[in-house]
C-alpha cells in the first residue's frame, strides 16, 4: 500500500531560523513527488514537482530535494508570511487512470517575528 508520512506534524520557528520539513514515502513506483502550500481556508497551492532522485528545485526561500525514500523542503531564513501547512503528495506509476495524488498529513509551520 502506498504511504506518505510527513514530519514533524507542527514546527515553530523564529523569523530567520532555517529548518527542513521531511516527507517519507513508500510506493511501488514513483512517477512524481509534489509539494503544495495550504493557507487556512484555502486550497493547496502548487510549489514544486520532483521526478527523480537527486533532483532539486528552488523558489525564493524554499528548496525541495528528492531521494529514493524521502523528500525534504528546506526553508532558509523564513519570514512570518511563510507560515502555512506544507503538503507532500506522490503520483504512483500505474495507479489509477489519472494518476491521482496521495497526500501526507502535512506539516503546520508557524514563523514568529
Amino acid at each position, binding site marked *: 500500500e502506498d504511504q506518505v508520512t510527513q514530519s514533524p506534524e507542527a514546527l515553530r520557528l523564529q523569523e530567520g531560523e532555517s529548518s527542513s520539513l521531511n516527507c517519507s514515502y513508500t510506493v511501488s513506483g514513483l*512517477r512524481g513527488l509534489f509539494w503544495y502550500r495550504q493557507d487556512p481556508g484555502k486550497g493547496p497551492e502548487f510549489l514544486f514537482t520532483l521526478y527523480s532522485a537527486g533532483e532539486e528545485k528552488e523558489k525564493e526561500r524554499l528548496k525541495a530535494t528528492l531521494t529514493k525514500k524521502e523528500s525534504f523542503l528546506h526553508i532558509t531564513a523564513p519570514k512570518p508570511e511563510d507560515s502555512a501547512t506544507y503538503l507532500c503528495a506522490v503520483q504512483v506509476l500505474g495507479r489509477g487512470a489519472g494518476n491521482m495524488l496521495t497526500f501526507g498529513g502535512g506539516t503546520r509551520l508557524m514563523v514568529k517575528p
Partner: protein
Amino acid sequence: GAGVSQSPRYKVAKRGQDVALRCDPISGHVSLFWYQQALGQGPEFLTYFQNEAQLDKSGLPSDRFFAERPEGSVSTLKIQRTQQEDSAVYLCASSLQTKETQYFGPGTRLLVL
C-alpha cells in the same frame, strides 16, 4: 488567468439532506479530480474525470456519493442523505492533461448537523 473555482464556499446541511457541490476547472483543462479533506489531514482522492468520462471512482466512500461532468467542463459532486461523517472540505483540482500538475480550487466546507 482564472483559476479553479468552487461553489458554494460553505454549506451547512441537516443530516439526511442532499447536497450538490460545483467545480469550475481552469478553461481547457482535460482532467478533473475531487478530493476530500478532513480537519487537520491531507486531502484524499475521491474520483477522476477525463473530459466527460469518469475513469476512476475508487475513492468514493459510499454509493451516496455521485459525481458528474456531462459536458467535459463543470463538474458536480452530489452527496445524498448526508451523514455527520461527511463533514469535511471538498476540493476540486484540474490539470491540462492526465499526469500533469494539478491546480486546486478553494474548496467547499461542508458541515452536516
